[in-house]
C-alpha cells in the first residue's frame, strides 16, 4: 500500500515537472524502447515530442500504458468542456472569416469609384447637358427609362444605378 502511494506520488510529481516545467520526460514504447523528450502537445491519438534528434509525432497506441497514462492525465482537467468551447469558437471564427472574405472579394473586384465633378452653381465651367459617362453601366433617359451599356439608347441620358427608373423594354435596363 505504502509503495503504491509512493509510486502514485512519484508519478504525479514527475507529471507536474514534465508537463508543466518543460523538462524532458522518459517515455516507454510498447516494444520496450525508451525515449526522452519534452511534450509539445498531445491529443486523443498522438503526442508531439521534442527529442534530442528533433520533433517526433507518436501515435498514443505505440506508447506503454504507463507512458500513455502519464501523458493523457496531464491534459484531462476540464478537457471536454474546453474542447467543446474551442469547437464553438472555431465555428464562429470560420463563419466570420467567410463573411470577411466575401466582403473582401467585393472590395477587391469592384473598381474604385471614379471622381465626378459637381455640376452645381460652384462649377467653373459652363454647364452642359449631362450625358452618360464612359465608366457608367446604366443611364436614365429624360423619359425615366433605364438603359444598360449594351442598349442602342444608352448614349443619351444621365448615369444611374442598376435599379433606378423603369427598365427599358429593349435591353431590360
Amino acid at each position, binding site marked *: 500500500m505504502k509503495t503504491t502511494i509512493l509510486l502514485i506520488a512519484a508519478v504525479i510529481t514527475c507529471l507536474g515537472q514534465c508537463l508543466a516545467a518543460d523538462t524532458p520526460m522518459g517515455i516507454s514504447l510498447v516494444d520496450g*524502447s525508451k525515449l526522452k523528450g519534452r511534450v509539445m*502537445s498531445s491529443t486523443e491519438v498522438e503526442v*508531439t515530442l521534442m527529442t534530442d*534528434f528533433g*520533433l517526433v*509525432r507518436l501515435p498514443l497506441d505505440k506508447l506503454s500504458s504507463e507512458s500513455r497514462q502519464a501523458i493523457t492525465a496531464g491534459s484531462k482537467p476540464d478537457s471536454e468542456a474546453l474542447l467543446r468551447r474551442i469547437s464553438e469558437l472555431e465555428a464562429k471564427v470560420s463563419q*466570420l*472569416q467567410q463573411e470577411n472574405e466575401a466582403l473582401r472579394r467585393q472590395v477587391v473586384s469592384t473598381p474604385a469609384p471614379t471622381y465626378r465633378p459637381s455640376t452645381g452653381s460652384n462649377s467653373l465651367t459652363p454647364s452642359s447637358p449631362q450625358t452618360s459617362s464612359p465608366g457608367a453601366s446604366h443611364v436614365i433617359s429624360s423619359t425615366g427609362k433605364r438603359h444598360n451599356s449594351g442598349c442602342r439608347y444608352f448614349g443619351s441620358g444621365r448615369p444611374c444605378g442598376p435599379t433606378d427608373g423603369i427598365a427599358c423594354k429593349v435591353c431590360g435596363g
Partner: protein
Amino acid sequence: MRWLILFALFLGISHGADVVRVVTWNLEWYPGKKPGATQAERDAHVVEVSAVLPQFRADVIVLQEVRNAETAEQLARLLPGFSVHVTSRFKDSFNGSIGEQQIAILSRFPADGAWAESWKRGWANAPRGYAYAKLMISEKPLHVYGLHLKSNLGNPVENTSKREDAMEQLIDHVKSQAKPKESVVVVGDFNTSKEQLNLAGDRTLKKIEEAGFFWAFEGIPIEHRVTIPGKGRYPDACLDHIYVRDLGRPAAMVLKDTPGSDHFPVVVDLVVEGMPAPNK
C-alpha cells in the same frame, strides 16, 4: 545509432520507404540582403549561406528570394549530387521586368518535370507565382511546390486577398497535377500565420487545409515555430510553413538562429513510400 533505429521505428519506416528531408528557406534578397546591395554585401551574404546550407543534410531545398538562376546554381554546387530543377522568372509588378525575389527548387533526386508559373490575374491579381517540381523518389512521384505569397506591406485587405487568390489557384493546380494518393508537399513563405490578430481574417492557410493538406507545425507551440523573429513593430511570427498531402502527419522544425537571413529555415523529414517490388 540507437537513436536512428528508434527514429526509424517511430516513423514507421517499412521496407521500400525513403526518408526525404525537405528544407524551405526565405533567403532575404539573396545575395545581399537588400535590393541594390553592394558587391561586399553580396559576398558576405554568400559566405554566410554557403557555410550553413550543406549542414542541413537536405534532400530537397526550396528557396525564396533568390535573385536569379545563376545564384541558385552557385548554391547547388555546394551540395554534392544536387541540381537546380527550376528557378522562377516572375516579373516585378511595378516595372514589368524580371524581379529579384525568385523561387528555386534544388534536389538530389531527379525530376520528371519542373517549371514555374505566374499567378493568373484571378480576382485579386497576386504577385509572383509558384515553382513546381515533380521529383521521382524510388520511382514514386513527390510533387513539390514552392511559394512566396504576397507580403504584408501595403493595404491589408488587398494583401490578404492576393494570398487567398493565389492559394485557390495553387489548389486547382494540385488537383490537376497530382493524382489522388500521390504525395504532395507545399512549402514556402506564406506571409500569413495562425496567431497574429491582424491576420485573423486571412483564410489562406484554412483553404489549403480544407483541400486535404496537413500542416506540419500542428501541435507545436508558437515559441518553437517562430520562423521570423520580431523586429520593431513586428512581433515574432510563423510565416513560413510546410503542408503535406498523402505523407502522414510529419513534424516540421525551425532551425532557430541560423545565420544568413531574416527568416529561419524550416525542415521536415518525410517518409515517402516506394513502389512495391514486383515479386512481393
